[in-house]
């Protein structure tokens, strides 16, 4: 046991001494903040609710219409509408800068209703207006359908914009919990192949330690590092006011996934014995595993977000299947590890 711990300690010490762990934390900090920056940017530029909240009344639209249905739908949405008797006058108002866009009178044509929309040529302005005007147009379309006697259901749903909520629980939390696991796998590949490629493996094995013990110690070191990062992230998220349920199960799942990635990475390293191929296969395996687990509807990502959100049907039992998988992988590794010496 003592040589085992010594290898674990050596691995952890080297990561801390070389400052590599700092880089890893930097990456995660960057990914987390970058993806939320992206989300924030997308929301403020592409989400019509957010746009309207900040500049709704500032978006002035000229309406040329006697039938004022569309105009009042736009007003309800929070846009400012200004009435003009003719298109020519509205046009003049557009060039005086009074309105940003013009909606012409609805016309009947072969049973269809036609509206002309006049937008500024600039891509920036026109895509913004098209985004905020989309919802009133759809409502107007539904109104026209009802006039024709077509009943469209579920049109009065409101709710609250859910993008941030979905992002935090289904992207951010799983990402922060599993990224350390991916890194743990890469670390196992590195520390095993480094011993082989630098010819230090035989020396290490002259210590009172079996080959399986040596590989196990390297895996354990990677997992410890991953779990410490997960704990730090969970603490930060909770300090930030994000409510996270089932913290214990979440950590256990993160631990098992880190175990799976490092064990399968070690398996690759044992079979291939060099860093280049092992890392390549490992990254391919990660992609494939993510895809396959989603296909099989058995994704740890789903379990993770359901645990975090406090789903009534998700509990520790959903983790068991991953634990069993880990045990199987480890058994396979312990049976094939001798190939490292061949």
């Amino acid at each position, binding site marked *: 046991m003592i040589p085992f711990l010594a290898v674990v300690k050596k691995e952890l010490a*080297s990561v801390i001494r070389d*400052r590599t762990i700092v*880089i*890893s934390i930097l*990456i995660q900090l*960057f990914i987390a903040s970058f993806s939320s*920056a*992206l989300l924030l*940017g*997308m929301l403020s530029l*592409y989400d*019509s609710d957010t746009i309207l909240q900040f500049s709704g009344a500032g978006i002035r639209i000229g309406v040329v219409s006697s039938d004022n249905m569309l105009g009042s739908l736009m007003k309800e949405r929070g846009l400012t509408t200004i009435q003009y008797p003719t298109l020519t006058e509205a*046009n003049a108002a557009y*060039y005086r800068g009074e309105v940003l866009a*013009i909606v012409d009178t609805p016309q009947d044509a072969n*049973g*269809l*209703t*036609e*509206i002309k*929309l006049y937008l*500024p*040529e600039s891509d920036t302005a*026109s*895509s913004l207006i*098209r*985004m905020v005007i*989309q919802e009133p147009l*759809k409502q*107007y*379309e539904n109104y026209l*359908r009802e006039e024709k006697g*077509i009943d469209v*259901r579920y049109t009065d*749903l*409101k*709710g*609250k*914009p*859910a*993008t941030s*909520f*979905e992002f935090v629980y*289904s992207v951010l939390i799983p990402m922060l919990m599993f990224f350390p696991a991916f*890194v743990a796998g890469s670390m196992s590949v590195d520390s095993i192949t*480094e011993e082989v*490629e630098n010819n230090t493996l035989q020396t290490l094995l002259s210590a009172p330690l079996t080959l399986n013990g040596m590989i196990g110690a390297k895996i354990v070191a990677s997992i410890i590092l991953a779990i410490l990062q997960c704990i730090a992230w969970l603490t930060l998220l909770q300090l930030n006011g994000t409510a996270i349920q089932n913290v214990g199960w979440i950590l256990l799942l993160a631990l098992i996934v880190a175990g799976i990635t490092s064990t399968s990475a070690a398996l690759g390293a044992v079979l*291939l014995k060099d860093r*280049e*191929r092992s890392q*390549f296969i490992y*990254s391919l395996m990660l*992609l494939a595993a993510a895809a*396959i687990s989603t296909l099989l509807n058995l994704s740890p990502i*789903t379990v993770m*977000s*359901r645990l975090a*959100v406090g*789903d*009534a049907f998700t509990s520790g039992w959903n983790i068991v299947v991953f634990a069993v998988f880990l045990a199987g992988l480890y058994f396979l590794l312990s049976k094939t590890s001798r190939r490292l010496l061949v």
Partner: protein
Amino acid sequence: MNQILVIAWREVTRLRKRFGGGASPLAVLLLLAVLGLSAYYLRDTVSLGSGLYRVGVSGDVPPINDSRFAVMEVDAEEGKAFLDDHTIDVFINGSDVISRADDKSQFAVRALKQYMERAELIRVGNSYAEADAFPLRVGVNYLGAEQASAGSEAAKPEEIIIPSITPPPAPFAQVLITLIYIMPITFISIFFTSSFMDEKVNRRLTILLSAPITPFQIILGKMLPYTIFALSTTAIIAWVTNVSVPLALAIFAPTMFFIFAIYLMVPLFYRTFKDTTFIAMLVTTLTTAYLIFPAMFTNVNDLSYISPLTLAVKMYRGEPFGWREYLFPSLPMAAIFGFAMFAGTRMLNEEFLMGYKPLTRKVNDAIYLMLAHSKPYISVPLWSLLVVPVIYLTQIILLAFATNLPVRLILGFTLLGSAMLEEIVKTVGIVVLAERGVVKSFREILGLSFLSGLGFLIGEKLLLVLSISMVSEARVAGALFGAGLLLFVPLISHFIFTAIITLLRIKLKFPYIIALGIGTIIHFFYNVYILRGGF
């Protein structure tokens, strides 16, 4: 040229040996097949979140096939009870949607609204005549900037849309396609870095360098097979996705060289295998961020042109772009590639590669190697001038980073970060030279500080002129690089900040971090003063 081809062939042989024979090619093929298959299945179902909401349904409700919802059949009484005890988030009873007042239930309602809108459209579209199901046509016209042209000739042809089935323009899908181009390039970088690592582990570098080949030829030769591979995958992707192959190659070639340039730095700086992994991960995330972040704002903000992916997004939309838009992202990338090649040739020597030192020490050595090729009075200002594109890209990433902060802090953080970056690049050369005894006297330090400030100022203003002439909305660039072309005051201030830091470090023996901190803070307050309209 011949030597380059020899090295390239050597690289191909190395890869063939490594991946030839045994089970590995088979494994790769198998995995690629799995990936292809799953990508094929997943192409429609990619959405944010899976199984996040529990929905109870009862009665005639359209099937909910959205990965965000987990649906369960309940009867009416059960449904209300489940809703109350938070087992489900929303209960749909026929055409009634029943929710609770708390956030999670309301979020579920909004997500449901998005889904049901689409589901209802399909139902209505299938069960009624088209004119009844989609009774509205909107003709979108664009008004030119000049009143004279209004009415008589439209700026763009009229575009007829049906509101409920025309999504508003958001470039998500196209940005995802453009990412497919980047994936193979980052993937093969594992091999590119390994190529240099192999030479190091097997100690063959000395032999290689003693041959009549320059380091420049070695790097180019090793890069050649990967360049060919990357260019052909780009061409294939373009061909498969039905866009112009030459255009795609023109757009992605600078990006490819930029990524190679960054990955060239990884094997030069690593000490252990873990270093390689972590440094490679860091640069991958940073470059991906730099490429994607601006592209998400295609057509919303002209600054999105700093990423070449924006051009690719436009290509996929069939929108034209001009030479200026092309050069704006491509030139800085090409400049960085050139800089990295130069740095690589200076650093490719046994002593530098084999040294096991702290990372900061290695960076220090690298800068010395780059500066030592000519007299300090030439190399120091040249260094300051040439790193400007790097600083520019870093500042963009910094800005993306800063948008997370509370609004009041964004500008301050960006200004402080930019000031620090600028001060680092201006002073680091002089400090490194002083540590090695090349620069000693008071006069030399002041002279070099002036030249370093001058070099940086020239680079910065060149870039500013470039961006103002290319992109109309260069206000952010202006804020970052000091708007206004007034030259005297910035030159003096650059000189003063640089001189303060170098003198504190070299003459008063302050630790570099503290000297840098002092200089940065002064620079920051100067920037704030300028922004408030001080001069």
